[in-house]
């Protein structure tokens, strides 16, 4: 198992989450609406961050499947709040040079007349720096 | 300056002595000078008519004297109470310090008392006589003509910020009843609070270093009625009959203020009698202001039997550290 403690510290600091509070109940994964789209599920995120096993998460598509719907934050009985970890890992990726997930030139292909501005700004905030 | 006259008081006293309601009268008598008026117990009409005085220098609060006199005198004592005195009177009843049945209280109106230092500032030294009527007429040994002073110009500091012209206790009222006033008495405390700690320290060091520990403040204070004062009690741990340094003065005044906190009616006698003119009432008012702000408005003596803030609590009281936050956010 790879252990990247620098990255782990960064993620913990950025997210403000203490993964050690997790009691492994799995309610986050039980409640996640994007569960089936994810390679690593919310409870695994918590566990992997706790173990410093961050590298696979950085590469995972799961980062872009989280809907930020806050359901796991709402229902986590231990206030671990996995979505905050997902967000922190995603930021760790897109903050790197040239690592933007979405580029302005991509938009034209996806957007239509009805696309609300909200969708564009949200997506850019989530996927790009 | 006073609206009620000496004769009105004498007539009332004579009437009550004659009809047997009371057997003694607690009143004022002239001291060494006209302005030096002291409390006295008159046990017959002759003494009363010979020595009783009522003028603009009758500031003394009689409530405290009732403790001593009611223990000694058979029958009831007539006491004249100005509005501010009635608060002390009630407070002492709350503390069971004398038997209400042994007192006949006559409430008298007060237009504010005169401060002899302010008079002296106008006329200079060598006062030979003072006549209080509409105006205060002062003669001195250095001048031929009497100087006339308007009483309003020489009011005692405490009377300038009088909290109430309304009596909260009496058996009988002479003259007209007044109202509880919207006083500015906390302004000076607020001014001090707004200073920096260093400024405050300097202020109090300057004031308290003048203390000569004469104990006049304690002796006159209607809340300081302890059978034995902690400062004279070797077992108390704070016994000190004469101070060795400025700390001990400070400690004396802090402890005294704390002991009377919640019981002090803010009558202002402490500052009136202080020979060094230390504004001791500003310590007591600080406690009153803090307690009002932290635990709700409370006026000691406003009613008999009320529960003072320091012998009371709620589960939601602010924390000791928060008393400062409170001020910081207010400021």
């Amino acid at each position, binding site marked *: 198992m790879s252990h990247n403690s620098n990255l782990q510290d960064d993620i913990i600091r950025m997210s403000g989450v203490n993964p050690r509070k997790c009691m492994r109940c799995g309610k986050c994964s039980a409640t996640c609406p994007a569960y089936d789209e994810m390679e690593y599920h919310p409870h695994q995120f918590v566990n992997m961050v706790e173990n410093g096993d961050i590298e696979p998460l950085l590469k995972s598509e799961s980062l872009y499947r989280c809907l930020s719907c806050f359901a796991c934050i709402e229902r986590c009985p231990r206030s671990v709040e996995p979505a905050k970890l997902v967000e922190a890992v995603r930021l760790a990726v897109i903050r790197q040079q040239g690592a933007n997930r979405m580029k302005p030139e991509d938009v034209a292909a996806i957007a239509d007349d009805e696309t609300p501005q909200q969708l564009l700004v949200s997506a850019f905030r989530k996927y790009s720096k | 300056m006073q609206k009620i006259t000496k004769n009105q008081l004498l007539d009332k006293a004579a009437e009550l002595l004659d009809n047997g309601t009371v057997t003694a009268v607690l009143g004022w008598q002239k001291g060494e000078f006209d302005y030096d008026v002291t409390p006295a117990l008159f046990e017959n009409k002759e003494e009363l008519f010979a020595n009783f005085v009522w003028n603009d220098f009758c500031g003394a609060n009689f409530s405290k004297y009732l403790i001593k006199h009611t223990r000694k005198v058979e029958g009831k004592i007539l006491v004249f109470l100005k509005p501010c005195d009635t608060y002390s009177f009630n407070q002492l009843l709350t503390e069971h310090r004398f038997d209400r049945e042994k007192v006949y209280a006559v409430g008298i109106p007060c237009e504010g008392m005169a401060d002899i230092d302010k008079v002296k500032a106008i006329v200079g030294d060598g006062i030979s006589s003072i006549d209080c009527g509409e105006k205060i007429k002062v003669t001195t040994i250095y001048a031929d003509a009497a100087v006339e002073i308007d009483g309003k110009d020489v009011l005692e500091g405490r009377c300038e910020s009088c909290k109430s012209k309304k009596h909260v206790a009496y058996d009988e009222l002479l003259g007209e009843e007044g109202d509880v006033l919207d006083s500015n008495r906390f302004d000076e405390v607020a001014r001090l609070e707004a200073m920096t700690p260093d400024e405050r320290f300097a202020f109090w060091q300057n004031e308290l270093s003048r203390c000569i520990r004469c104990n006049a403040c304690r002796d006159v204070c209607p809340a300081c009625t302890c059978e034995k004062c902690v400062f004279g009690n070797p077992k108390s741990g704070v016994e000190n009959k004469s101070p060795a340094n400025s*700390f*001990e003065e*400070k*400690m004396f005044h*802090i402890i005294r203020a704390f002991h009377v906190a919640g019981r002090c009616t803010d009558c202002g006698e402490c500052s009136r009698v202080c020979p060094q003119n230390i504004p001791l009432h500003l310590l007591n008012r600080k406690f009153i202001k803090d307690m009002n702000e932290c635990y709700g408005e409370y006026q000691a003596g406003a009613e008999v039997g009320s529960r003072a*803030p320091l012998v009371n609590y709620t589960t939601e*009281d602010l924390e000791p550290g928060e008393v400062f936050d409170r001020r910081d956010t207010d400021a």
Partner: protein
Amino acid sequence: MQMNEHKPLIVAFCCNWCSYAGADLAGNNRLNYPAEVKIIRVPCSCRVNPMFILRAFQRGADGVIICGCHPGDCHYTSGNYYTRRRMAMLFSMLDYLGIEKERTRVEWVSAAEGAKFAATMNDFVATVTALGENKRLEDLRCKK
């Protein structure tokens, strides 16, 4: 003797039921705090008379801290509520006289809060050390 670093003298009044036990727990768990802290055991924080605090300052203490059960948990049900009011008023008065407010403190420490006790003492000693010697409220005559 080193003159450059002032070692403060701290008196801590601890109630027997919660805070003294909390201090014991700090010991059981070997949680260090400075030796400048000297604890006096009282049955309840409400036993602490303002006179004790002033006396400590008079005799050269640089800081005084009163520890009691958390509000609502007083062994005597209401003692610490009185403490809370008394000390709030006393501290406010000391501040009014220009004495550094950081020299006095009230903390609620339960018998289970050994860590809090140690952390509180560390913090208090650091605070008082930063203030330096208590010149404003001590009686130099009594100082050794």
